[in-house]
Each structure stands twice: as C-alpha cells, then as structure tokens.
C-alpha cells in the first residue's frame, strides 16, 4: 500500500465513522422526522445541509475539469452562473412560500394546489430526475475507491451503498441532514486546502481570488503558444445566444429540483427558510468561486509539465491516471515526445487524430494535489471530500425517491388509512429498494447517464418551475392549466432532447439550439400554456384562493394550518365536482 493509499484509507475511515455515529445519534421514529427532520433544523445547519445536498460528485469532482478542459475557460461559466443563480430564484420566489404551505414533498404541493393528475405527473418527474442523478453519484463513489484505494469499482459502490443505507434508512431526513452538515465541512476543507496550497506554490499568493488574474495571464500565454484559443476569450465554444439559453435552463432547473426544494421544508419557520437559502448559497459560493481557480491552475500545471515531455519520462501521477483509463495518450507524430500543439482531444476516441492527449474532466480536482506535488495527506483528504460530496447528494436524492413512493403514492393514493408506523415502514423499504437500484446503476452505468444529468435541469425547468411559481404568484392559475402546461413543457423538452442527443436519434439541432438549453424554451411554453388555458378553465375555488393569499404572509394563519392538517372541506377547497381524491 502506497503512502497516498494509506492516508486515503485513514481519512475515509475517520469520515465514515463520523457519519455513522451522527446517524446513530439522530435516528427517528415518526414520519415527520423521517421526511422533514421534524421541521426544526436551525438555518445555518440547514444551509450547510442544502449546500452538501446540492454539491454532488459533479460539482466537486467534475466541474473544474469541465470548465478548464472541455469548455476551455469562458464556456464553462454557464455552470458557475447557472448552478448558483438558481438560488436567487429559490430564495425570492419559492422557498418561503412553499415552507409556509407546509407539506412534505413537491408533488404534495402540486397535488394540493392543483389536482391529482398534476400530482401524478409531478411524482413521475421527481422520480425520473432523482434516479438519473443518483446513478451518477454512485458512479463517482466507485471512481474514488478505484483510483485512490485500489479497490475494485463494484466493491467501492457496495461500500458506499452500505454507508448510505445505514444512515438514511435509520435516520431519514434527520439523520441525512446532520450527516450532510458533517459532509459539507469535510468537502469544503478538502477543496480549499489544495486550492490555497497550489495557489501559494504557483504564484506565492495563497489567496486564489487574488492570484487568479496572474494565472489566467500565464495560461493565456501558454495556450497561445500551442495555438489554442485564449482561455478568457468569450464565445469560442458556445455562441452568445446559447450561453444565455443554457445558463437560464440551469438556473430555472436548479430552482425546480425536488431534492433541493424539499430541504426548505425542514426549516423551522418562514423566516428560517429565507435564512437557509442565504446560508446555502453562501456555503455553495465558497466552492464555486474556487472552482474556476483550481481549474485554471491545474490546466496550467498540466500543460507546463506534460508538453514536450518524452513519452517514457512522464510523471508518476500521469501514469496512474493513464492506467485507470482517465488520461489517454498517443504519440501520433512518432517523435517520442508528447505534443500538446492544437490543444486537447474532445474525446478519448479522438486521440491520435486531432491531438495526442485526452484528459477526462473527472480527474482535474482529484489529481490537482498530485500534479502540484502536494504531500500525501492532502491527496487523501481530497479523496474523502469527493466521497462526502457524492454520498451527501445521493442521500438527499434517495429521500426524495422514498418520500415520493411512501407519501405521494402509498399514503395519498393507495392506503390513506395507513398508520404512522406503517408509512414509516413503507418509506424505509422504498429507501432500501432505491439504494439497491442506485447501486446497480452505479456499477453498470447506462451510456447516457452523463448526458442525461445535464438534461435533468432542462426537464426540471420546463416542468416544475412554472407551476410552482404561478401556483404562488397567480391565484387564478387553474388545475387544468397547470397539468397542460407541465405536459407541454415536459414533452416538448424531452422530445427535442431525444431528437438531438447522439445516444438517441442524433439529429442536428434545429436553429442551433443545444439540447442543454432547450429547457428554457420549454419553460416559456409551459408558462404560456398555463396562462392561456387558465383563461378558459374553472377557476380555483374561493377557499383555495384564500389559502394561496394566506401563504404569501409569514407568521401563523389558521387557514393554512387547517389546510395543511387536512381539516378543510375537500368540496369547498377543490370544487364540488371533484371525486378523484381518496
């Protein structure tokens, strides 16, 4: 066992024991604790939990690499702005009001505000989005175990499954929340320490915000010598209009993702929900403002060390990543030296054709400490951070799956007479089943997972955001309007994505609209559909309009309480002719 492996094993053992200890301390025995942690989580802790929930293997492991390598700098800004800007929408437009409404899940709001058809569409959307996402997390766990501990990928995923099973099934939302607070702490320390160390190494200035400019200038110079577009040059990869479309799809998608929204239900009060959003974005911004720096520094180090290196004298870190297949190299011009002229290959298959080297986005953060020659404990810490990011997001998604099955389907549709204990049991069984499927998908990832994760945002933007937003801000948005809007937005977006994606039909984009940006157009269609259809369909009952009115003010109001407890008359709330509820 190498020194790096030893340190990784030590950090993984310490952090995993911590998670299990927290889970044991916060085990729950009722559905309120299981779904929303009893609704009593203080705002800073809730914010840290949202941040850990949000920052997945994609944010921690892949994002800096996507920005620096596959998007060549500026093009990657869509992820930085999109995945943070959505929180402004959440904080101002959704979180406080949904908290006041007081339910357990997103489909719950949709079903109560509109009708049962809309609830079912929402349940299906929530399940699809969450399963797609969680498969990626389990895959990330496998990569970290494989590379840093030399463990078989399958075994790595199984270890991850066992840990998540333990704290999610036992503690539900309460266990997940407090574990996520610990996981946020681990992942942010693991991200900041190497960034600061590399920044100090490269420029003598440990503050990455201040050294960023110097590194960018040097990187621009290096890339110019190699004939690559300048790193800071705008619109070299993505046109202006597509930058706007993709950024907007990611922003509105972020605000519509069920596993993020559900976290605001755990806040103690409306005011606590607002503060949770503030803390969440603050904690997220720490990593997101560092990501462009670590991406640029890693790329600089990479080009600096590898370009012109004889093929048989490559550094050790380079060789280990080649061994696990995440760097592909070919001396295609046969001069026994690695040439980076012309840049990096877009895919592993292009190596030898357009360029001599392909770098998988996933290694940029994980390899950064080794590339910069930092000591083994830091390398181990980064591995533990990657695991924390993947596990915390996986557990939040599993909770959405579990509560959708146990609350929205089993309790609300199949067996409304179920006792607390029974609902809890169904929730735990659903959680166990979901972990099993997620693990399976992590071990045998379907080829299109990476593509579909980015597309999940488009689907969330086109389906959830408009109906949640109008459900609060427009009292006259009708049930039929919402169901129609969701159906139009979702099917338009999904069909266009299937039409253009290489794994499906692979047709050329229409008018140059990228499949990752089409969610913005789907969202606009959804809004228009609700607006038009609502003009001709039965208005919400006076009582429902009064409930929505009440949701707009913080503080306690008897009407909203009565609604949340289900003591209001169904006929008065949803209209006389409605017999579709159990």
């Amino acid at each position, binding site marked *: 066992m190498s020194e790096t492996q030893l340190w990784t094993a030590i950090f993984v053992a310490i952090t995993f024991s911590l998670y299990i200890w927290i889970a044991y301390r916060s085990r729950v025995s009722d559905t*309120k604790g299981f779904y*929303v942690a009893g*609704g*009593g989580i203080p705002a800073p802790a809730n914010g840290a939990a949202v941040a850990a929930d949000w920052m997945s293997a994609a944010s921690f492991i892949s994002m800096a690499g996507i*920005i620096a390598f596959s998007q060549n700098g*500026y093009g*990657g*800004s869509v992820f*930085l*702005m999109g995945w*943070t*800007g959505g*929180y*402004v929408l959440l*904080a*101002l*437009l959704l979180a*406080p009001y949904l*908290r*006041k409404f*007081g*339910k*357990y899940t997103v489909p719950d709001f949709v079903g109560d505000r509109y009708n049962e058809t809309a609830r079912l569409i929402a349940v299906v959307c929530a399940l699809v989005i969450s399963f797609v996402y969680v498969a990626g997390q389990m895959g990330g766990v496998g990569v970290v175990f494989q590379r840093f501990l030399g463990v078989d990928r399958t075994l790595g995923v199984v270890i991850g499954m066992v840990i998540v099973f333990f704290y999610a099934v036992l503690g539900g939302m309460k266990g997940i929340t407090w574990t996520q607070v610990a996981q946020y702490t681990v992942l942010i320390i693991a991200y900041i320490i190497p960034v600061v160390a590399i920044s100090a190494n490269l420029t003598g200035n440990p503050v990455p*915000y201040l050294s*960023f*400019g110097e590194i*960018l200038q040097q990187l621009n110079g290096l890339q110019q010598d190699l004939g690559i577009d300048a790193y*800071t040059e*705008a*619109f070299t990869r993505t046109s*202006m209009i597509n930058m*706007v479309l993709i*950024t*907007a799809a990611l*922003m509105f998608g972020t605000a519509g993702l069920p596993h993020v929204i559900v976290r605001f*239900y755990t806040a*103690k*009060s*409306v*005011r*606590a929900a*607002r503060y949770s*959003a*503030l803390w969440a*974005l*603050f904690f997220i*911004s720490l990593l*997101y*403002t560092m990501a*462009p720096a670590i991406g640029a520094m890693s790329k600089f180090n990479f080009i600096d060390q590898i370009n012109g290196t004889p093929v048989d004298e490559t550094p050790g870190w380079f060789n280990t990543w080649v061994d696990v297949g995440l760097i592909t190299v070919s001396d295609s011009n046969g001069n026994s030296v690695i040439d980076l002229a012309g840049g990096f290959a877009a895919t592993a298959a292009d190596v030898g054709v357009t360029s001599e080297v392909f770098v998988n986005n996933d290694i940029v953060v994980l390899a950064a400490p080794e590339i910069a020659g930092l000591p083994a404990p830091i390398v181990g810490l980064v591995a533990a951070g990657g695991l924390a990011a993947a596990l915390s997001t996986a557990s939040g998604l599993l909770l959405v799956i579990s509560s959708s099955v146990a609350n929205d389907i089993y309790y609300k549709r199949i067996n409304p007479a179920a006792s607390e204990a029974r609902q809890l049991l169904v929730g735990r069984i659903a959680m166990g089943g979901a972990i099993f499927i997620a693990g399976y998908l992590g071990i045998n990832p379907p080829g299109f997972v990476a593509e579909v994760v980015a597309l999940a945002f488009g689907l969330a933007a086109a389906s959830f955001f408009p109906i949640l937003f109008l459900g609060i801000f427009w009292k006259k948005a009708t049930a039929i309007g919402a169901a129609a809007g969701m159906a139009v937005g979702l099917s338009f977006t999904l069909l266009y994505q299937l039409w253009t994606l290489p794994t499906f039909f692979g047709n050329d984009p229409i008018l140059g609209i990228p499949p990752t940006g089409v969610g913005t157009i789907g969202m606009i269609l959804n809004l228009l559909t609700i607006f038009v259809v609502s003009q001709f369909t039965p208005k919400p009952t006076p009582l429902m309009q009064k409930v929505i*009115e009440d949701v*707009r*003010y*913080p*503080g*306690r109001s008897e009407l*909203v*309480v009565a609604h*949340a*407890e289900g003591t209001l008359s169904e006929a008065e709330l949803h209209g006389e002719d409605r017999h579709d509820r159990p």
Partner: protein
Amino acid sequence: MDAQQRQAYWRENLKLMAILLTIWALVSFGAGIVFVEQLNSVSFLGVPLGFWFAQQGSIVVFVLLIFVYVKMMDRLDARYGITEYEQEVHHS
C-alpha cells in the same frame, strides 16, 4: 393585518423582488454574457472584467442579493407587525 395592509405588504414585497431580480439578470446575463466582450477590455484584480463577472463576480453578487432580501424582509415584517414568524409553522 387588515385587507388594505396586506395589499400594501404584498406590493412592497413584489417591488423588492423586482429590483433584486433585475440586478440578478444584469450581472449574469448582462455583464457575464451579453456585454462580456466590452467589459473584457477593463481588468479587475488582473482578470478581464467580463470574464470575472461570468466566473466569480456574479456569484458574489447573488449572495449579496439574498442577503439584502432577507434583511429587507425582516424589516418589512417588523413594520407590519408580523412578530410570530419565529414560531414553528406546521406540517401535514
């Protein structure tokens, strides 16, 4: 709160939201994308300004926007005598 006060409260809330969301769109879609090339001729901390907005600046502004929002809403609530907001709201 009576009906008139409620209306006034809601209108102030909407006005605050409109102002903050305008700034939100200006820093991200404006400075970060549409006007990025013009702004890149200026440099901030050694980084071309448009690029800085796209990669770091907009995120910093987003945090400040939510900060201003929660503080202003606290003041708005206090002015309209909403004091029970710390009280736990229900769940079903």
